[in-house]
């Protein structure tokens, strides 16, 4: 299993409904990735270290499946930006 750290901003199309945000697809570089499944999600309310402590905010994290590859993406409320964190593949 290979885990590759990415840490790059991405553009995401998501559905906001019933108190949840579900990403549907994201664009990284020149390619658009259609999300087949959300494996799991978690909310981190501890604040984003890169914005400075006490800046507050939260981040919504997702593990999403695109074919055989797993991507970790997150939305930072402090930066109002989606990020691609890492890619996991066999």
């Amino acid at each position: 299993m290979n885990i590759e750290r990415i840490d790059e901003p991405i553009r995401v199309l998501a559905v906001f409904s019933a108190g949840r945000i579900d990403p549907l697809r994201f664009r990284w570089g020149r390619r658009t990735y259609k999300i087949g499944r959300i494996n799991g999600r978690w909310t981190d309310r501890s604040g984003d270290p890169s914005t400075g402590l006490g800046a507050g905010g939260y981040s919504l994290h997702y593990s999403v499946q695109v074919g055989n590859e797993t991507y970790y993406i997150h939305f930072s409320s402090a930066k109002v930006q989606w990020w691609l964190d890492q890619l996991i593949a066999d």
Partner: protein
Amino acid sequence: MNDHDKLVLHVDVDAFFASVEQLLIPLLRGRPVIVGSGCIASCSYEARAHGLRAGMSLREAKRLCPQAVILAGDYQVYRCFAEHIWQVCRRYTCGLETYLDEAYGDATGIPASRDGDAMSLGRKLQRDVRDEVGLPVSVGLAANRMLAKLASASAKPGGVAWIRPRQEMDILAPLPIEELHGVGDKTAEKLRDMNIRTVGELRALGLETLRSLFGRCGELLYERCRGRDIENCPDLRPRIPKTISRETTFHQPACDAEEIRGMLFYLLERAMRTARLGGLAVRTVELSIRYDDWKDLAGRCSLPQPTADDRAAYAAVLELFERLYQRRVALRHVGIVLSNFSSAGGEANLFEPQDAARRRDLLRSVDTIRSRYGHAAVVTGESIGLLGRLERNDYGFVLRTPSLTK
């Protein structure tokens, strides 16, 4: 309300860290997975089938199960999942006491337990956690904490068990004595020497006999083998803990004095802050260290008087550290345990030295700032030695293996 009317719930997340990793990474499902560094912090049930257990060294784990996938883990992620699980559990309890991967709750009179029986409440909770969080939990229900925990242990993995009122004696009788809360290795050895191996056999000893053998613990054993958990707090209000501990493994084995002392101070001030929040002063400080070659050493000292001041307790920690750390080998792990608590007393003493009063006010101010803005809002003392070495978030420095108070 007597004990038989109460309903205490125990929720235990099955193979917590490993289950989170298997949820988030489908490649790992059905495979033996280990989370840990140096030793196993958590392993999947597929790994347990190969004899792997929490606490086992990774070297031994790799020998037993070479195909296991080993992950260092991300404790901040696990904390977020735990918070979500407890949020779900609070719908089914009026009061929840949470630990790292388990929680106790009072479910007495909860509508879900009135509409159906306790089993339906347990199953509903389990289903909600699975649907909303995606993780498996085992649920135990009984009239007190001790029995609820026994019930959840018997239902693992992924089950629900209810020890019904007036069934306690029959359920407990065949259990090995080691499974009874409060029976440690020494007590078990003593009882086995007397040919007592099960809880049912333990009941044959009277209260006076148990008292003479084990003192106060004997009284507790007498009650517990009859299904009565006399140290239970019915309303789950915070109790005075026996110990407050903080420990961590360094990201890399550490030999830099500034880093080690910084970590010791940081762990101590976190533990002391917890003590102060509980209105407690500490009398005994214990330090444990693990060298990079896995040699463990520990020491303990009692302070001249109880203290809620980091500085006084840290002086004791440093003294222990000077005594223990004698080899030119890097450290892999350090831990601090506070114990022997007494009430700190809230108000100023008219005859208190001015310096002590100023220190107390300073600590109170720092605690207030941290409660509002997060622990990391203020970096004090030798914790400054960790700046630039460790990442921080609002909780504080991001440690490799944070441990929570039990």
